[in-house]
């Protein structure tokens, strides 16, 4: 599912010409990227929703003005980054609150025992592994979380879009990605060693 720049350009041009189906396809194609940028900057779901909405509204009025319609994904990533920064700076004046994703995770935890009864054993294992991975990701540095969260977008963004989302050179994405993934592996390894010391952490019926 790599980015097809021609396709993005075709969609952006057709949408600029007034085709609602192409617009819908654009939204579906790049929603994951825009959301990931806002969440990468660790905005709350409410603030991320605000950034998401403003970014897409901004595009509706600027469709015909984008210099490179092929790069509409990068345009969206840049706009989402700037709106995210705006939100971060505006809320810096207010009392900072912890990101609530950790709380969201707790809810997933509460629900999962019932689900795992329904799911196959393998699926339950997959959920547990995904949760462990997500928890380890949340412990990474802000910079690593920003980069990796954007790389996690579905479908995967290209490096130009990632660079636009972070305002960093395309050339430094690869090395930073490798370093952050390495740190993530380190966290996962630490946690596994911890789990051995606490065998009851993994319940066996």
């Amino acid at each position, binding site marked *: 599912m790599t980015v097809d720049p021609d396709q993005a350009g075709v969609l952006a041009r057709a*949408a600029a010409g007034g085709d*609602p189906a192409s*617009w*819908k396809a654009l*939204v*579906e194609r790049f*929603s*994951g990227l825009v*959301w*990931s940028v806002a*969440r990468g900057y660790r905005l709350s*779901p409410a603030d991320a*929703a*605000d*950034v*998401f*909405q*403003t970014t*897409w*509204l*901004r595009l*509706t*009025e*600027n*469709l015909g*003005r984008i210099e490179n319609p092929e790069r509409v994904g990068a345009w969206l990533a840049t706009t989402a980054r*700037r*709106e995210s*920064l*705006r*939100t971060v*700076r*505006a809320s810096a*004046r207010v009392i900072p609150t912890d990101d609530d*994703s950790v709380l*969201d*995770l707790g809810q*997933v935890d509460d629900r999962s025992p019932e689900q795992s009864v329904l799911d196959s054993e393998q699926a339950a294992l997959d*959920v547990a*592994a*995904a*949760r462990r*991975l*997500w928890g380890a*990701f949340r412990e990474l540095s802000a910079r690593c979380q920003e980069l*990796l*969260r954007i*790389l*996690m*977008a*579905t479908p*995967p963004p290209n490096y130009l879009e990632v660079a636009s989302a972070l305002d960093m050179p395309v050339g430094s994405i690869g090395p930073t*990605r*490798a370093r952050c*993934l*390495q740190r*993530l*592996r380190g966290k996962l390894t630490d946690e596994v060693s911890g789990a051995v010391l606490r065998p009851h952490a993994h319940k066996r019926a």
Partner: protein
Amino acid sequence: MRDEPDDTELEEELRLAAARFDPVPPGLILAAVDAFTWRTIDAELAELVFDSLIDHDDLAVVRGSPQDRMLSFQASGLTIEVEITGTGASRRLIGQLVPPQPASVAVQAPGGGPSGVRALADELGRFSADSLPAGPVSLHCRLGAETAGHSVVTDWISM
């Protein structure tokens, strides 16, 4: 160096975890699809060229208090300077059209319907509005006296 396939695999696992734990809210996608029908076709766009919250500019610090947000929108032959003061219910918008001219200004919220907040710019191009809606807004300016002039809309901003 770790090998590339491992990194690709780990990134793919992260993607699946993100899709599970932090997906795009479906309602947001629907709203973004709908946004296409609200776009203005018959008005000129005034592009956001300065936002004191994003663009560092010493002048903004001089001009207003740190609590205030200064915005500047640029269309051909028209600049719309906007200052937003206060927070929450006491939020207030003060605007200036350059060059100065009368206009009718509507604060537009997403969804096509007017937010109900309107203002009249006087002969000196000054206008102000209170009771601003939360979330993204765009200013729709009809220039000139009454229905005479052409329309200019600003880029969407969020407050």
